[in-house]
């Protein structure tokens, strides 16, 4: 029997939600008027009678004080309470068969544990809609259902059973690649979604010719996963011919090279493990990893971002012997939310829906894991329309001495955590191809659904198992699932896997599907046989599944078996070293820059207000507050600071262990407008931003570790690759100059969208993430102005170049020159600023970034709810930069605004004698003239800006304040 249990609110508490849906419908360009009524519910396959189910509902399935249940057999006519009227359209939305449904699973488990006879439970939402019928399919598609993972059933519900699929009958599948022509090889790769190039297919063909047999499907899939761009980074680690220089291994000769040359004694493990590791204090090391989850998020923003953060959390968990995640950071790149809904290419979701979806996805996973999301950013650019970027990062802390792992002959291969289903098949190879308008359809299998609680339970087990020494090595199941996890762990030894032992979510999976499934929340351990019983017992006590999948064996081979049949037998050497080297050509396409012509009668005040309202600058409070940023009770500089806790912090500061006063600073740098014009300078600007954000809150510039994340268009286009090489060179140069080693990185290439034969690429996007350290968290500095009467100074040199600035993106049509980073001056500035902070001379500090000085000052005024009377006259700048517009809105790097108490000005002046500094003005207190106003005078003493802090605040907050009315 299948029941529909609809949960109905007793009062009108849901009206907010329904109103919200109507607004969203209108925003998506679906003309109303709509009346949309949403309820949640469960579909339950059970032998329970209606009365027993009603009791169970009261017991646990709903909130009896505010909700009641309507229970109907599925397929029965709608009861009068359900169908409102003839003009009401009924639409049910439920997860597609086989898609993970955590609340459904929870309901099933709790009902069974309470002694009820229940077979299966799936969640379902029911919509009752009144509105124009013609637009109903559009409304359903664009707003109500996520077709990647859900299905919409209009009208009466008719389901016979909730079992997702039938039985699997074993049949060994071989792929007859021997003797295939080149065209057939290409076709095999494409149709199998293997993303293997012809050259790679040829090498595989030759390898198996040598063995005198064809590969099995599992073998070919394993090779495809291992050789994918996603897993092997073949472009960045490949050879590049560029302007007469040839790189054999781009990454090794640029970013790695800098880290190696630096030989910093505080670096523990770099570019080797799932996250980079550095020392923190006598007791702990810290690790950091940032990943992207772009392609899945384009198709299913919620699920994509949800599993993005879930996946990156597993990186620290799988680093060394397992680190405890202590902070998250998230950065999103999307198209402007005002994009006209009727101009969307087919298969592309509206950017507002994308952004809301990714925010919810990160929120629901990060918050449930109990990891504070302390820092982030959102960047808007039209070219992210079809390829939104979702970067998720996690910092972990691990006891010293636990950052290395080993695998011994005979160790058990143990899977811990979630069960294996058909989730995310081909995720690794899917992320290595361009999206097309059909991607939504063909790739939905590549979208996974996360269950944060499963991962939290795994974490609870791992931390205890680690401290009791119950395993020798650990890694996470990411892209490629078991195939990459076991393949990597056993790379130097060999492994034998019995695929039938993997616990499955449901029957019907083939051996290959088990092997490459990207079902979430799974970790793989190497467990010494004598520790297995203890581990098994520990996992059981926490309700976590742990299963022996096989053994690591000293054979040098990866052997896969299914009920005794050998279904794969690959040499580890071929798997890991057999891939033909990728060789690409880079060629520059110079973009001509044009010197901007400034208006003869500019309205600087209006420009400031327009910039504050620019989405790239406007307050992100709506997003930030949806994340728990204080769980674990270690966040001592929060993402929003100031009198009303609404001004943007440069970096978050975490105090991870109260045993000492040492702290961590987390920040990011991103420059989305400069990469096409000058990728080298773009990268330098991003690095500068990440580092200066850390230094601004008090981090020691000699202890900053960096991560790179390259998101690019197709690297097979020579001009794209050229920009990539330039950016990598900038990373090398600044890392070396500042002694800020890169400790880990990631790349996501092929971010292009093919539509009507035209390929559109994202802007070259390099996210630099910085992990800084503070000697003493009590020395941390925030960016809000503190005290009337204090002086406000600027340190840093202003260049004339306006390229890449938000001002330029708003007011210039032609590309302008991108400002450069002066590495020596920057390093001196970072060091001297840090000295001043340590000496307690700085009351507040804010870096100058998007929107230039004017926006920086506005933000500091908002933070302190305080006025400032400032002048541009004393700003250190080049002759050509002596223009009010440049001084106000230019985005030259390595500049900070600081607040200093009057009697500390002398000391600071001595300390900074060799730096370019200028006095901007004085903070104005209540009751004085100009209180609560930002007043800026220009080079000729005329008042350029005179605006109240209230107006600044409202202008800055309004554009992205998407909180529903309440």
């Amino acid at each position, binding site marked *: 029997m299948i029941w529909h249990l609809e949960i109905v609110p007793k009062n009108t508490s849901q009206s907010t939600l329904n109103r919200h849906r109507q607004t969203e419908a209108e925003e998506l360009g679906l003309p109303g008027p709509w009346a949309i009524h949403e309820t949640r519910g469960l579909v339950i396959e059970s032998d329970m009678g209606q009365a027993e189910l009603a009791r169970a509902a009261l017991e*646990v399935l709903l909130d009896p004080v505010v909700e009641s249940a309507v229970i109907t057999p599925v397929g029965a006519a709608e009861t009068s309470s359900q169908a409102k009227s003839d003009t009401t359209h009924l639409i049910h939305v439920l997860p597609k068969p086989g898609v993970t449904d955590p609340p459904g699973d929870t309901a099933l488990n709790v009902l069974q544990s309470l002694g009820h006879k229940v077979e299966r439970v799936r969640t379902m939402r029911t919509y009752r809609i009144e509105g124009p019928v013609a637009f109903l399919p559009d409304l359903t598609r664009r707003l109500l259902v996520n077709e990647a993972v859900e299905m919409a059933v209009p009208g009466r519900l008719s389901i016979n059973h909730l079992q997702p699929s039938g039985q699997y009958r074993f049949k060994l599948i071989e792929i007859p690649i021997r003797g295939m022509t080149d065209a057939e090889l290409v076709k095999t790769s494409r149709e199998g979604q293997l993303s293997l190039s012809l050259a790679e297919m040829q090498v595989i063909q030759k390898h198996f010719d040598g063995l005198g047999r064809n590969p099995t499907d599992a073998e070919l899939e394993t090779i495809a996963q291992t050789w994918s761009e996603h897993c092997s980074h073949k472009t960045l680690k490949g050879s590049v011919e560029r302007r007469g220089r040839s790189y054999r291994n781009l990454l090794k000769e640029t970013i790695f090279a800098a880290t190696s040359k630096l030989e910093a004694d505080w670096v523990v493990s770099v570019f080797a493990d799932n996250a980079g590791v550095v020392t923190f204090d006598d007791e702990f090391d810290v690790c950091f990893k940032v990943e992207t989850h772009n392609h899945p998020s384009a198709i299913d923003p919620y699920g994509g971002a949800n599993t993005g953060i879930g996946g990156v959390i597993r990186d620290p968990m799988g680093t060394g012997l397992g680190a405890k995640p202590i902070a998250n950071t998230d950065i999103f790149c999307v198209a402007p939310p005002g994009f006209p809904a009727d101009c969307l290419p087919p298969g592309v979701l509206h950017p507002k829906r994308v952004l809301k979806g990714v925010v919810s996805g990160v929120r629901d996973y990060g918050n449930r894991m109990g990891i504070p999301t302390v820092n982030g950013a959102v960047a808007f650019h039209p070219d992210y329309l079809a390829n939104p970027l979702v970067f998720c990062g996690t910092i972990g802390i691990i006891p010293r001495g636990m950052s290395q792992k080993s695998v011994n002959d005979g160790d058990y291969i143990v899977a811990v955590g979630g069960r294996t289903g058909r989730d995310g098949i081909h995720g690794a190879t899917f992320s290595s191809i361009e999206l097309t308008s059909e991607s939504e359809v063909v790739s939905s299998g590549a979208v996974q659904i996360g269950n944060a609680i499963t991962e939290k339970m795994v974490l609870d087990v791992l931390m205890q198992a680690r401290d009791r020494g119950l395993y020798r090595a650990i890694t996470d199941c990411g892209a490629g699932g078991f195939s990459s996890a076991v393949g990597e762990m056993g790379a130097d030894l060999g492994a034998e896997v019995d695929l039938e032992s993997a616990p499955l979510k449901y029957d019907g999976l083939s051996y290959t599907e088990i092997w490459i499934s990207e079902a979430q929340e799974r970790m793989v351990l190497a467990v010494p046989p004598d520790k297995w019983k203890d581990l098994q017992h520990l996992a059981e006590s926490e*309700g976590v599944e742990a299963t022996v999948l096989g053994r690591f064996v000293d054979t040098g081979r990866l052997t896969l078996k299914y009920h005794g049949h050998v279904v794969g037998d690959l040499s580890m050497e071929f798997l890991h070293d057999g891939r033909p080297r990728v060789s690409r050509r880079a060629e520059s396409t110079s973009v001509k820059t044009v010197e901007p012509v400034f208006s003869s009668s500019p309205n600087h005040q209006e420009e400031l207000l327009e910039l504050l309202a620019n989405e790239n600058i406007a307050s992100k409070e709506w997003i930030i507050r949806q994340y728990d940023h204080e769980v674990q009770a270690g966040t001592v500089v929060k993402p929003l600071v100031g009198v009303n806790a609404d001004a943007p912090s440069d970096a978050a500061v975490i105090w991870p262990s109260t045993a000492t006063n040492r702290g961590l600073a987390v920040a990011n740098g991103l420059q989305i407008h400069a990469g096409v014009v000058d990728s080298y300078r773009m990268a330098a600007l991003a690095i500068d931003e990440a580092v200066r954000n850390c230094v601004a809150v008090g981090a020691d510039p000699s202890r900053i570790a960096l991560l790179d994340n390259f998101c690019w268009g197709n690297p097979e286009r020579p001009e794209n690759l050229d920009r990539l090489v330039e950016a990598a060179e900038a990373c090398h140069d600044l890392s070396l100059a500042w002694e800020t080693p890169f400790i880990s990185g990631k790349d996501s290439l092929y971010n292009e969208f093919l539509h009507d034969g035209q390929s559109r690429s994202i802007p070259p996007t390099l996210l630099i993430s910085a992990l800084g350290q503070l000697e003493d968290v009590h020395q941390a500095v925030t960016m809000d102005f503190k005290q009337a009467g204090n002086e406000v100074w600027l340190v840093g040199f202003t260049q004339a170049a306006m390229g890449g600035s938000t001002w330029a993106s708003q007011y210039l049509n032609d590309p302008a020159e991108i400002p450069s980073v002066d590495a020596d001056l920057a390093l001196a500035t970072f060091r001297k600023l840090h000295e001043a902070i340590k000496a307690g001379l700085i009351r507040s500090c804010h870096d100058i970034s998007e929107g230039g000085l004017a926006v920086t000052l506005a933000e500091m005024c908002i933070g302190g709810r305080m006025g400032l009377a400032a002048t541009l006259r004393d700003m250190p700048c080049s002759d050509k930069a002596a223009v009010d517009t440049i001084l106000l809105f230019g985005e030259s790097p390595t500049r900070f605004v600081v607040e200093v108490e009057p009697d500390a000005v002398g000391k600071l002046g001595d300390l900074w004698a060799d730096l370019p500094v200028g006095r901007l003005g004085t903070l104005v207190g209540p009751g004085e003239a100009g209180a609560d106003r930002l007043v800026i005078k220009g080079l000729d003493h005329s008042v350029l800006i005179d605006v109240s802090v209230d107006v600044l605040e409202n202008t800055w907050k309004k554009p992205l304040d998407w909180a529903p009315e309440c």
Partner: protein
Amino acid sequence: MAAVKALVLRAPGTNCDQETARAWQMAGASAEIWHLNRLLESPAELDSFQILTFPGGFSYGDDLGAGRVWAARIHQHLSETLCRFVDRGNLVLGICNGFQVLVATGLLPQGARPGMKPTASLTYNNSRQFEARWVDMKVSSSKSVFLKGIERIAMPSAHGEGRFLTATADELAGLVHENQVVLQYVNPLTGDPTETYPDNPNGSPMGVAGVCDPTGRILGLMPHPERFVSPLHHPRWSRFPKNAQPSPDGLKLFQNAVSFLKN
């Protein structure tokens, strides 16, 4: 005299257990963190503790409504154990998800008694979204032993389901009359209880942020006292002079509990 022993219970999805145990330790208690399964195996061991804490998090994912699954497990296995624990004069504290559990079991507001059923609800915020922000509260009655000597207190709140509802308005008035509404969100300027967002983050009628049982020994509150046990937790600590840092008021709740049990 022997140290006060606090048990911090955790279920799958609990995530504030460690900082809550730390807060008990800072307040002078000894604290242990136990998985629910351990207590289910040996319920009698609860008698060796004087304080039981249900910490924050998302127990069982809050998949069927906040705290509901954990509450069902308690109903199934631990009702009597809990009643006896409270009858012996011990203390129970529920924070955020823990408060939701106490309300879903019925331990709050009507207290530990056999056959208890929920009479109140912590349901979706009016904003329909999870929100993290600091809130100001007033202590509206002296009934809760945890809140002795506190008049006003600020703490971080972080939840999506915190709106305290009773089946009828009369029932809420009854709780006020019995002095069981002990914490109310206030407008920071006037100090008056508020239903206005965002000072009241969830839209609780009368600004209810925390309630106690008729004995005053069971307290549930949505905001997180364990996240304000150091001056550096205060959102504006960097605005205070170095020699006059904000006092970590959240710690007082834990200290009050420990001194109540010592006296």
